């Protein structure tokens, strides 16, 4: 983690200026949609990375592109920091306020603007919750593929900002693959349109692809055009129980090498299983197991049993003590439960939880996991692993108590060692959570000075004055 005091302190707005600006914002969005009372600002002090907390000066909740444009125009004119925020579920501090900044929240921009079934497209506002889109398109046999674990709460705007992934991105790819066009409000309030389905041959540079994953530093996307996929005819879900993480890792390698293309391959380790089974989310995983492997296939019904059979053989050959197969949707949800509820379960056994995120080449997973365990021992920390094994995306979860300064210090040191380890084997510091403030300090591990300077300059292309989400991404 980067030290909290690294967060940039912007122009110091005095109280008079705050009220002047707030009045102008109220004139744009309505009095009830501008929050300045300290008691109500507490809810906006942090996002999912609760180790950092900074109260903003105000929160403004626009409803339309035009309102966002006018709001940003006012804030830009006053030189005020703007912190875009969706649902605040991000895990890297991407929506952390600056002390003098104003949060522009997208909570009221939660409408589906169009569903175009002929072209399998939807256009949505940024505050739409991810899962709502698939609920709305399912009657047409369509769905939106990226499925972050927080999909029942996180927003499409946040997904665009973070280029979010999810368990099924192994087969279907991350958010950038599905965003075809954007309406963006720039830092000074200018409204621009980038890309759009049907316009692919106009222009050389993929500005939509560059915008996705820019963590709120390039502009605020107010309309998002996404591609939808047909809902698969069938699904098969398996749960492999292993005595060791190493054996589960071998099973994953064998499955991927066999030519199978699972939709998802997820692993939870022994510590996670114990935590889940001790919680209200108990899923029936054996508590003496070293690892549990969830494998899912989707596609044409006719071929799914054969795929599931081959995956089961891979698991058994790698030493699985048991392979369970769901025979109903209820059973499928049961097999997934231990994976999906892992974070919630861990939150109940320690006061604080640091959800780490890194990616390594899949073949390096067993070695990396063994070394993460040693790092945990070395710093006397409990680390539970949940990860997207198919694409090498690790989530080591460090359990701690922030009231214990010594333990907090050890958490920070262990986190850095884990990041250094992942980079040393050819991986990277974040696979899907983004850099935010949490990973800024690690950016020199993966980018040299020339590359960091280039990142800074590219940011200035979109936001020359640096008012949009300052203090994020680039150290």
């Amino acid at each position, binding site marked *: 983690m980067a030290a909290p005091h690294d967060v940039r302190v912007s122009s110091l707005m005095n109280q008079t200026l705050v009220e002047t600006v707030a009045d102008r914002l109220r004139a744009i969005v309505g009095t009830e949609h501008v929050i300045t009372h300290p008691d109500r600002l507490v809810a906006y002090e942090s996002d999912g990375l609760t180790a950092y907390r900074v109260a903003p000066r105000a929160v403004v909740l626009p409803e339309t592109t035009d309102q966002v444009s006018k709001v940003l125009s006012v804030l830009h004119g006053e030189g005020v920091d703007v912190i875009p925020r969706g649902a605040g579920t991000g895990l890297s501090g991407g929506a952390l306020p600056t002390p003098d900044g104003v949060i522009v929240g997208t909570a009221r921009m939660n409408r589906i603007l169009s569903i*175009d079934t*002929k*072209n399998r*497209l939807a256009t949505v506002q940024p505050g739409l919750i991810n899962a709502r889109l698939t609920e709305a398109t399912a009657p047409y*046999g369509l769905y939106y593929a990226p499925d972050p674990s927080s999909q029942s709460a996180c927003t499409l705007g946040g997904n665009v900002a973070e280029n979010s992934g999810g368990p099924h*991105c*192994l087969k279907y*790819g991350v958010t*950038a*693959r599905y965003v075809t066009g954007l309406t963006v409000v720039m830092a000074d309030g*200018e409204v*621009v349109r980038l890309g*759009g389905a*049907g*316009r*692919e*041959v*106009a*222009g*050389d*540079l*993929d*500005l939509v*692809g*560059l915008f*996705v*994953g820019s963590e709120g530093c*390039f502009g605020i996307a107010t309309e998002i055009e996404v591609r939808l996929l*047909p809902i698969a005819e069938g699904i098969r879900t398996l749960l492999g129980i292993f005595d060791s993480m190493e054996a589960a890792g071998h099973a994953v*390698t064998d499955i*991927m*090498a*066999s*030519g*199978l*293309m699972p939709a998802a391959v997820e692993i939870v380790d022994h510590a996670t299983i114990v935590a889940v089974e001790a919680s209200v989310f108990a899923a029936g995983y054996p508590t003496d197991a070293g690892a549990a492997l969830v494998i899912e296939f989707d596609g*044409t019904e*006719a*071929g799914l049993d*054969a795929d599931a059979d081959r995956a089961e053989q891979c698991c058994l050959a790698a030493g699985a003590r048991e392979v369970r197969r769901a025979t109903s949707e209820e059973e499928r949800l049961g097999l997934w439960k231990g994976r999906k509820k892992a974070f919630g379960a861990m939150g109940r056994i320690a006061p604080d939880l640091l959800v780490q995120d890194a*990616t390594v080449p*899949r073949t390096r997973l067993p070695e990396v996991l063994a070394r993460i365990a040693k790092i945990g021992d070395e710093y006397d920390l409990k680390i539970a692993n949940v990860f997207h094994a198919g*694409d*090498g*995306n690790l989530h080591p979860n460090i359990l701690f108590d922030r009231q214990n300064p010594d333990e907090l210090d050890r958490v920070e040191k262990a986190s850095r060692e884990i990041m250094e380890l992942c980079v040393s084997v*050819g991986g*990277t510091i974040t*696979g899907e*959570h983004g*850099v935010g403030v949490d990973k800024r300090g690690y*950016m020199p591990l993966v*980018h040299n000075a*020339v*590359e960091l300077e*280039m*990142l800074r*300059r590219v940011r200035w*292309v979109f936001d020359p004055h640096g008012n949009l989400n300052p203090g994020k*991404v*680039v150290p």
Partner: protein
Amino acid sequence: MTLLERFRGAVSGVAAHDSFEAVGRLALGEPPSLTASPRSVEDVAAVMGWAAEERLGVLPLGRGSEVRPVADGPFIVLETSGLSGIDEYQPADLTITAGAGATFASVDDALRENGQWAPFDPPRARQRSMGGFVSTADHSPLWAGYGALKNHVLGATVVTGDGRILRLGGKVVKNVAGYDLLRPVVGGRGRLGVVASVCLRAFPVPAEERVLVVKGDSALDLIERALAVGVAPVLPVSIVVAGPLMTLEGRSAMVLRLHGAGSTVDADQATIEQHLGSSSDVFDGASGTAQSLLEEIRDFGGREACRVELSVLPSRVGEVLRAAGAAGLRSLVIDTYAGRIRAAADRLDPTDVDALRLAAEEAGGALRVLDWAGSDRPSDTPCRAAEVRLSERLVSIFDPGGVLWPTRS
């Protein structure tokens, strides 16, 4: 002191010459002032830095398969054939890294030895260099099943116009460590830098490929049926209407490709034929007829002097095709799922192409001229003003001296 002598004095260890036989075949217009052949990324950076100081344009040259330069000042050729190795291949990780000068064929061959492949099939794919392949990122008929190339380029080493080396992305599928500068490089036609090496995601070779062919008298006749396949419950990996096709004795056809295990492909074929209400001619993907057909579709328009490419929403393809017919463009390949149309003819009236462009734009689409015989080349659909402004700002920081010479394809 000649330019070649100045180069040798400033850039040690990089082969160069000022004879032009090697590049004469490219019909560059004016000959290059010098040809340099770097053998490493650092060499490329040294050449770029020197060219920037000398204020010389730089034309990166892989296999020359897609280069259509227009000379507007002194320039040098930067041959990437010295960067032709496969630098790293981890079959178990499904990733492969190759130099810019490696042919796509060499990469594909290496993958296939391990039961893997890169599922992209743009024009003349096997002859092309990896640098050119990534810089142009042309549309692939396999788009419906595998998506665009930009989703599968995991990393690239790029040298900017002033010789800075940027290692963008990495070797892992999921990577959000900073803004994704790789995205505008892929398909950026060299505007942001010289691609020196590329890391691609590989895929398992499907157990079976089956090709379904429904013949018709014209592409227009088949388009509604192809659009119907696009919204069927089963999605083929490729949905193309093309014609006239020599392989089919001048007839047009809807060509569908199915990938998967035998039982899956059987079921998919049955679903699609039920959806269409008719059977189709069926070929094994490895058969001579299928290979010939797929090659003709992939390399479509290679013999004609004029080629244009359009993009439009799939539901608007029909109306744009009617405009194409009115413009005399009867030789067509249409990816109906993506809404991408390529059209070719030996000679076209620029007024007709302008009318086609307007038809595409009225349908929310765009047109780009790929090849044109003569000096009366029609206009492409312009970018929006804001996109132009942002793109030019990006280019200015990647290429402050303006030496990069984007190729056309």
